[in-house]
Structures are given as structure tokens and as C-alpha cells.
């Protein structure tokens, strides 16, 4: 995992996020407070703006820097959660990390979100995408799964995770006040995670 790939992903993610404005925003307007798109946009642009600095760092340093940048630029609920993810991920990946190591780091990042957010699978949050993805990623990486197959499976799991939030009762975040009225709406943070994961998958596809 080289930093130029990380930077490519960042640029791609920014583009995809900007294109998904309408979709992401309307989700947080429906069951949140309407700012999720703005938060994510601000954070991803902040990360993009340190691109040249990232290029000089080792991957672990880069993830740490990304985490700190998100922490100081996003705010809201998603800020500390995404920041925790990258800070934890940074601790697990070393200079020349492989897929197995990355998948462990990913799982550790997701656990860090669970700790910070005191949340779990089924709470109708971003975790309903991230937890299934981390499980699938780790098992496929351990199996030594072929990368194109892995990409395809991860993509599907992420999508299934988003869709699953639709029928859940909320229990964390701003939508919790809504109770049954939130049922039928997709969680905005879950959607964002799926979009980011799918974008990274597309970038991965291009390499091979």
C-alpha cells in the first residue's frame, strides 16, 4: 500500500462525495439535522488539501495525519468517528503493509468507532456498513482471496449494509428521537461509508 494510492483514493472520494450531494443531504434532512453532506465535504476537502504533505509520509503516518485532519475539521458525530477510525488504523499498518495487515487495521478502526460511539451493529448508523465490511474483509484476506473477487464481495456487503439500515429503528445519533418515524429511511452516515468504500474499490480495480 503506497501513499500515491492513498492520494488517488482521496481525490476520487472527494469527487464522488461532491457528486452525491443531493443524495447524502436529503438523507440527513429526512432523519437528522441536514448537515452530514456539508460535514463530509468539509472533511474530505480538508484531507485533500494536505495531499502534498501526505505524499512525504509513510502509510501509518499518513493515516494518522488524515485522522487528525478529520478530527479538527469535521466536528459533528461523524468527525470524531471517522477520526477514530483512521487513528486506530494508523496504529496497525506499518511501512510496508499487506492486505492482511490492512484488514486487521480496518477492523481495529471499526472497533474504535464502536468504542467512541458506544454503538453496535443494528443501531442504524455507519456501523451497519462498516462492521459487515470489516468482517468480510478480514475473512477474505485471511483466505488469501483473489483481489478482484474481494472487491466485488466487499462492494456487495457494503451495499447490503446500507440497505439494511432502511428498516431499522434508530438508537444512536440524532435520528434516535424519531423512533419509528425513522423507519423506511436510510442512515446518511451508512450511505457515506458505502460510497467511500465503493470508490476505493473502484480505484483498487484500476490497479490490477
Amino acid at each position: 500500500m503506497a501513499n500515491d494510492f492513498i492520494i488517488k483514493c482521496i481525490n476520487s472520494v472527494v469527487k464522488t462525495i461532491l457528486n452525491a450531494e443531493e443524495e447524502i443531504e436529503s438523507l440527513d434532512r429526512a432523519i437528522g439535522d441536514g448537515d452530514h453532506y456539508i460535514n463530509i465535504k468539509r472533511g474530505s476537502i480538508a484531507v485533500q488539501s494536505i495531499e502534498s504533505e501526505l505524499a512525504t509520509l509513510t502509510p501509518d503516518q499518513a493515516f494518522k495525519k488524515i485522522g487528525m485532519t478529520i478530527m479538527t475539521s469535521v466536528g459533528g458525530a461523524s468527525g470524531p468517528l471517522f477520526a477514530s477510525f483512521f487513528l486506530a488504523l494508523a496504529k496497525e499498518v506499518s511501512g510496508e503493509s499487506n492486505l492482511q495487515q490492512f484488514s486487521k487495521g480496518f477492523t481495529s478502526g471499526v472497533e474504535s468507532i464502536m468504542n467512541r460511539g458506544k454503538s453496535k451493529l443494528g443501531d442504524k448508523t455507519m456501523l451497519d456498513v462498516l462492521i459487515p465490511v470489516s468482517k468480510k474483509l478480514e475473512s477474505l484476506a485471511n483466505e488469501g482471496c483473489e483481489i478482484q473477487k474481494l472487491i466485488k464481495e466487499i462492494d456487495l456487503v457494503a451495499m447490503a449494509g446500507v440497505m439494511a439500515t432502511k428498516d431499522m429503528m434508530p438508537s444512536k445519533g440524532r435520528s434516535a428521537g424519531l423512533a419509528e418515524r425513522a423507519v423506511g429511511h436510510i442512515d446518511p452516515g451508512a450511505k457515506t461509508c458505502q460510497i467511500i468504500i465503493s470508490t476505493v474499490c473502484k480505484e483498487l480495480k484500476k490497479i490490477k
Partner: protein
Amino acid sequence: MKKFINKTDDFIIDSLKGFAKAHDDIVALNLDPIFVTRKEINPNKVLLVSGGGSGHEPLHTGYIGKGMLDVACPGHVFTSPTPDQMIAAVEKCQPKSGILFIVKNYSGDVMNFEMASEMIEFENQTVLTNDDAAVINSSYTTGRRGVAGTLIVEKVVGSLAEEGGDLSSCKQLGDRVNHHCSSIGVALSSCTIPAAGKPTFDIGVDEIEFGVGIHGEPGRKREKIKMANHIVEDMVSAILKDFDEKSLDLKDPNGIILLVNGFSGTPLSELYLIYQAVTEKLKEKQIQISRSLVGNYTTALDMAGASITMCLLDDEIKKHWDSSVLTSNLRWGY
């Protein structure tokens, strides 16, 4: 969207600059990271630090000053501030008696203040406010939201801190005042986040949102508009039920603070009309209104609507509510 605004990205900073200039006898503004402190910082008292997403003005910046807050950290509109803001603010203040964070119970606020709390080397504690009776509390949810009751917590604890109360007394009193507060809000219109440019929610010309949050989060139920007296009846019932569930008796001879709070888009005349309706309901219930506050104290951008907060008094809370306060938006006794 029509607003007095230059660029949406500059909205908060432009507004804070004006705020700080208009009240430069009371506050000082720090840019990068953004925080507001009292003009004169007293490092010997417990430092009261609040903050949260912007859009609720005068909360919290308007409550900085003698007898109330020391610091407020404003985030972007409806978005919690980031930990670096709180960290930089307390470093500037170098408090010698510890820090009390007063945080409204929203995932984002809780997590960002938690990260700040973990990262600073000063002794600190946190009071989480969660006075919103609209959200049914259960172990299943993140819990109730902090709304206009927060202002009462800030005023009362601010008084104790000002007269030299220590950190654990402040924390204890804050928790008690929060427990003694219940609120419920009703929206007649949505609010519009400047950067989003369109209303957060759609609402029919004859509809109201009962139990709305201060970010325009949908509340308990959508219903048809009705006579103010009837809306108020439902609001008062929800609050009384909440006090029942907390096993607090509002018929206490100490009485209550009654706060009728506007969300910003509702004229003062309507807030007084609501106040009048509440007094009639409480008379029926033999609940004594000992202190009153009517106005736009905890707002939701341009949302039309109002909330009612009741705070059960005891001797200590009453004393600290009555003590002098000198902030830009709450001021008496000085």
C-alpha cells in the same frame, strides 16, 4: 434561501466577529481555532466551558460573562465543535481549579468534548444536559437531547463557580439542575442551514411538529395546527409527565422557573401569549411559578416555534438563579 450572509463558509466567522465587537467589554474572540472567552479570564475559579453547533444563538456565546460561562466553542452550523477548539481554549485560560464542560447530549457534542477531555492535562468533568422530554429515554437510545434547559444549568452553575464553588460541587449542582429541568418544543416551520440552502424538513401550511429538537430534528408527531391554548396544553402535559417519571414533585412550595423560549422565527408577542396559556394550565395544577423568562434564548436558526422549560427550584438553585449575571444576553443584578 434568503439570509443576511456573504459566503456560507464565512457565516459563523463573520457573525462571531460582529458579536465580539458589539460586546468587546465582555468577551474576546479567538480565531483559528475558534473560541470565545470572557474578556478577563479568572484562572482561579472553576472554568465553565460550553459549546456546540452554531445556530442556537445566543446559546452559548451570549452567556459568557460574570456569573455564567467562561468559554464557548462554537462549531459550524448545527455541527459540534472539534476537540482542538476546546483544547486551545483551556490552554489559553490555564485554569487552576479545574474545568467543567457543559455539553448538550448529542452524539457529536459528546464525542468531541470527550476527545478534548481525554487530550487535555487539566482536571475536568462534564455535565451532560438532556432536558428534552420529547425523546423517550431508554437504555436502547443515546438518550434525550439537551435543549433550552442548558441555559438554566449554565446560569445556576455559573453562579456557584463565580462564588468559588469547587469542581465537584459544580458538577453535582449541574447534574441536579439538569435533572430538575424538562423541556418540550413545537415547530411551525423548518429552519434552513445556510450551507444547505433549503429547509431541513417540509411541513404543510397547516401542520406543526410536536417535540421538535433545536436542529429541526423531527419530533414526536406531526399534527394539525390548533389553538395555542391546546398546543400548550399538550406541551405542559408532556412536561408534567416527565417530572412524574423522574419522581419530582412540581407542587413543591419552592415552585419552578418557567422559561418560554422562542426558536427565533416566532415574535415575542406570541411567546408571551404562550406564557399566558402556561400560567393558566399551571394554576389548575397548583404549580407555583416563582421565576420567569420569556424570549429567544436557545434558537434554531430561523425556525418558527417555541419551547417550554420548567425547572423545579430548591433553595440552592433559586439562590444561584437570582444571583447577578452580566453577559451579553442575560443580565441582571449588576
